C-alpha cells in the first residue's frame, strides 16, 4: 500500500508537469515526481524493526551485538542511491529555476502558452 501511495504521488507529479501551463508549476510537478521516486527507493530497503545502518560503540562490544546489528540493519544501498538522487534533483532544480528566471525576464510571464504566442 505504501508503494501505491508513492506511485500515486508520482502520478500527481506527472500530471502537474504535463498538464499545467505555468513554468513554476511544471518545476513543482517535477519536484513531486522526484520525491516520490526517492521515497520509493528508500522504502525498498526498510525492514520492520530495523535500525539505521550506522555502527556505534555498543555494537562492537560483543559478537552477539554485532550479529544483532547485521540481522536488523536496513539496506544502506538504496540510501546511498537516494543521496545521489537528491543531489541530482537539486542540480536540475537550480538549472530549471535559472531558466525560469531568465525566461521571465525576457517575456514577462511564466505562462508557456503566452510565451509561445509572444514568440509567434
Amino acid at each position: 500500500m505504501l508503494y501505491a501511495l508513492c506511485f500515486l504521488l508520482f502520478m500527481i507529479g506527472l500530471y502537474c508537469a504535463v498538464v499545467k501551463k505555468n513554468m513554476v508549476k511544471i518545476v513543482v510537478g517535477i519536484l513531486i515526481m522526484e520525491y516520490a521516486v526517492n521515497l520509493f527507493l528508500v522504502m525498498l530497503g526498510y525492514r520492520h524493526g530495523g535500525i539505521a545502518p550506522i555502527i556505534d560503540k555498543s555494537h562492537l562490544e560483543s559478537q552477539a551485538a554485532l550479529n544483532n546489528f547485521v540481522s536488523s540493519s536496513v539496506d544502506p544501498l538504496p540510501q546511498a542511491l537516494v543521496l545521489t538522487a537528491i543531489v541530482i534533483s537539486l542540480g536540475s532544480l537550480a538549472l530549471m529555476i535559472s531558466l525560469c528566471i531568465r525566461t521571465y525576464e525576457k517575456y514577462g510571464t511564466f505562462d508557456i502558452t503566452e510565451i509561445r504566442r509572444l514568440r509567434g
Partner: protein
Amino acid sequence: MTIFYILMIFIVIASLIAVETTDLLSSVICIGAMGFGVSLVFLFLRAPDIAITQIVVEVLGLIILIRATISRDLTFISGDKEFFGTVVSVAIIFVIFLAGLRVFETLPEFGTAIFTQVPNAASQTYISQGLEKTGAANLVASVILDYRAYDTLGEATVLFTSILGATVLLRRKAKNTPETLQPVSES
C-alpha cells in the same frame, strides 16, 4: 506502520494542494511542507543521513524557489483553457496508475527488504563487512565514498555541471561583438 500512512497521506494532500492552488507562492510553500514530511519519513525509515540531507536541501531549494516566484506575476494563473485536453490527460494518467498498481505486488512486501530475500546480495556484504573493509562506521558513507565512490564522483560532477550551467544561463551578455554582417531582418 501507521506513522508511515499518516505521513504519506499528509504528503499526498500537500502535493495535491501544491498542484491545484492558483497562488504560486502557496504552491511553493506546500512543496516545502512536503519536503519536510518526506524528510520525516526518511527518519522513520531509519535513514538519518538522507533525512539530514533532505532537510538542508529543502531549505536551499525553498530559497531558490521562493526567489523565483516572489513578486513575479503573483496569483496570476489563467485557468486551464483546454478542458478537453486536461480531461484526456487525467484519464490517461489514471489508467496508467491503475495498470501500475499490479506492478507493486511483484515487489517484496513493505518491511521485508529485498536484500534479505536474494542470496549473496551486495547489501548483505556491505552490512556485515563494511566496517572492517572500509573502516567507516557509517555504512552509508562507506557505500557512497568507497564501494560506489564512482557514483559520488558523478554526483559531484552533476552538481558542478548544473551550477556552471546556471551561471552560464544567468550571465548578462551572451554575444561578444556584433555579427560581421548585419543580420537580414526577418520577414
